[in-house]
C-alpha cells in the first residue's frame, strides 16, 4: 500500500516545511511566555514544553523505520529533519534550564547535575545527541560509511535516556507519562524483534521466487 509519492522536485521544499512546522510549537510557546500566556509558572512551563517536544520528535524519528517495514510507507527523507528538530528543542530546553530556571548559578547547576539521576540522564541524552546532530549531513554519511549506521544506533539509548529523564522528574506516573512509556517501549521493542522479522520476510521472498 504505497502512498502516491511526492514529485521529486517538491521533496526539498517539503523538508523545509517540516522544519518550519516542527519549530512552530516552540516559537509559539516563547511568544506565549513573553506575553504572560503560560500560566503562573511560565519558566517551568516553557522548559517542560521544549522538553516534551524534543521527546516527541525523537519518537517521530524512530517511527520512520517501523512504518517503512510494516506499512511500506517510506518517509526516510524526513528522518534527518525530525532528528535535528529534536536536537534544537533539546538545546533550547537545556538553555532555558541554565538561564531562566537556574539563573546561570554554576555551583547550583553542577550540584544539581551530579546529585540528581534525572538531570544526569538529561545530560547523557544531550551528550549522545551532539555527535548525532554533527554527523547529520551527507558529507558525514559518505565519510563514515558503515560506521555512520553504527554511530546512529545511539538513537536507541538516547530515547531511553530522554524518557527516563522525563519520567523521573515527575511527582507521580499519570496518564501522559504512561503514554510516552508505552510509545517508547513499542519503538525500542520493535528493534529487538526486527532482525527476526526481516529474516523471515527475506526467507519468504526467496521461497516465492523459487
Amino acid at each position, binding site marked *: 500500500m504505497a502512498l502516491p509519492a511526492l514529485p521529486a522536485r517538491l521533496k526539498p521544499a517539503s523538508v523545509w516545511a517540516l522544519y518550519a512546522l516542527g519549530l512552530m510549537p516552540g516559537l509559539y510557546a*516563547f511568544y506565549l*511566555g*513573553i*506575553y*504572560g500566556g*503560560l*500560566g*503562573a*509558572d*511560565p*519558566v*517551568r512551563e*516553557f522548559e517542560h514544553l521544549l522538553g516534551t517536544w524534543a521527546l516527541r520528535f525523537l519518537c517521530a524519528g524512530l517511527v520512520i523505520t517501523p512504518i517503512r517495514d510494516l506499512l511500506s510507507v517510506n518517509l526516510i527523507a524526513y528522518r534527518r529533519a525530525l532528528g535535528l528538530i529534536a536536537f534544537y528543542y533539546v538545546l533550547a530546553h537545556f538553555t532555558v534550564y541554565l538561564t*531562566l*530556571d*537556574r*539563573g546561570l548559578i554554576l555551583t*547550583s547547576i553542577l*550540584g*544539581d547535575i551530579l*546529585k*540528581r*539521576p*534525572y538531570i544526569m540522564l538529561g545530560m547523557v541524552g544531550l551528550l549522545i545527541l551532539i555527535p548525532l546532530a554533527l554527523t547529520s549531513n551527507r558529507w558525514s554519511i559518505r565519510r563514515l560509511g558503515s560506521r555512520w549506521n553504527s554511530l546512529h544506533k545511539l538513537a536507541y539509548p538516547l530515547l531511553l535516556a530522554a524518557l527516563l529523564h522525563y519520567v*523521573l*522528574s515527575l*511527582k*507521580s*506516573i*499519570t*496518564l501522559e507519562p*504512561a503514554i510516552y512509556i508505552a510509545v517508547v517501549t513499542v519503538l525500542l521493542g520493535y528493534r529487538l524483534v526486527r532482525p527476526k522479522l526481516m529474516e523471515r520476510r527475506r526467507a519468504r521472498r526467496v521461497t516465492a521466487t523459487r
Partner: protein
Amino acid sequence: MSLYRPPRTQSSEITPREVYLSRRSFMAGTAAGLAFAASGTALAAPLAATPSAYKVADKLTPKQDVTTYNNFYEFGVNKSDPAANSGDFKPTPWAIEVGGLVAKPQVIDLEKIMTEIPMEERVYRMRCVETWSMVIPWIGFPLSALLDRVEPLGSAKYVAFETVVRPAEMPGQSGFFQPLNWPYVEGLRLDEARHPLTILATGLYGETLPNQNGAPIRLVVPWKYGFKGVKSIVKITLTEKEPPTTWKNSGPSEYGFYANVNPAVDHPRWSQATERRIGEGDGLFGGRRVDTLPFNGYADEVAGLYAGMDLKKFY
C-alpha cells in the same frame, strides 16, 4: 531569624476587599465580566475576618495565580485542572465528622462553627514539594479551637484527616488511570495539630475558598510541604498510632509523614534547596529563585516540636 517581623506590608498596601469587589461589579457589566462570573472563582463569597499577627512580610502571590495554579488531584493531575474542572463541586452544605479518641465525638456543621469561632486572616508562605512557592492570605481558625470542642483523650497522639470522595463532582476520582487512592488522607502529630500556626482555612483573599483551593475547608500547615494541606475535609479522627497518609503510601521513600520543609533534606530525585516564587517576574523573564528556609521560615516557632529527632530520618 524571626519570621513574624513587624508587618512591613502595611494593610493600606493590600487592595481592600471593597475595591476588588467594586472592580468585579464593574466588570460584571461587561461581556468579559459575565464570562468571569461564570467561572468557578466567582462563586466565592466575601468572608469577614480579623487581621492576625501571623503574617509574613513577603509580597503576596496574585490571587489569579493562587486560584489557577495548584495541585488537587481529585480534579485532575495538571496544575490548571483544579480551576478548570471544579465547577460542579458543591461545597455547601458541609459537615465534618470528628471522632476517634475524643470525649465528645460529633458531626460539626461548618456554617454553624464559622459563626461560633472567630475567623482570622493569616498571611503564610506555602512551599510545594515540587519546589515552587507562594504567599497566600488565608482566612481560617486554629485547628486547636476545633480540637478543644471534642476534647481529645489522653491516649490520642495523632490527628487523621480525610478528603471527601465524590466522583460525580470530582472528575479526577473517576476514569481508568488514577495516580492516587481515594480518599486522600493526611495526618499530624497531636502537638503539631495543636500548634497555633496550624489552621483550618475557610477562605483566601477575603473570600470563601474557591472550589479548586479545597472548598469549603482545608488544612494549612505552613512549615510543611503543601501536600500536607488536605482539602475539602469531611472527617477528622484522633488516633493513637501514626495514621496512613496518601503521598507516603504512594512513595514511602520519597514522601514522609512529617514532610517538614527542609532545604537540607533533598527529595531523592530533586533538590529542595531553592524554590521559584510564583507570580513574580514578567512572563518568562525576571522570575525569582529564592533559597528555601528550614521549616519554610517558621523554625523559631516550630523547630522545638522536633527537638532530638533526626530530620533526615523523619522526613
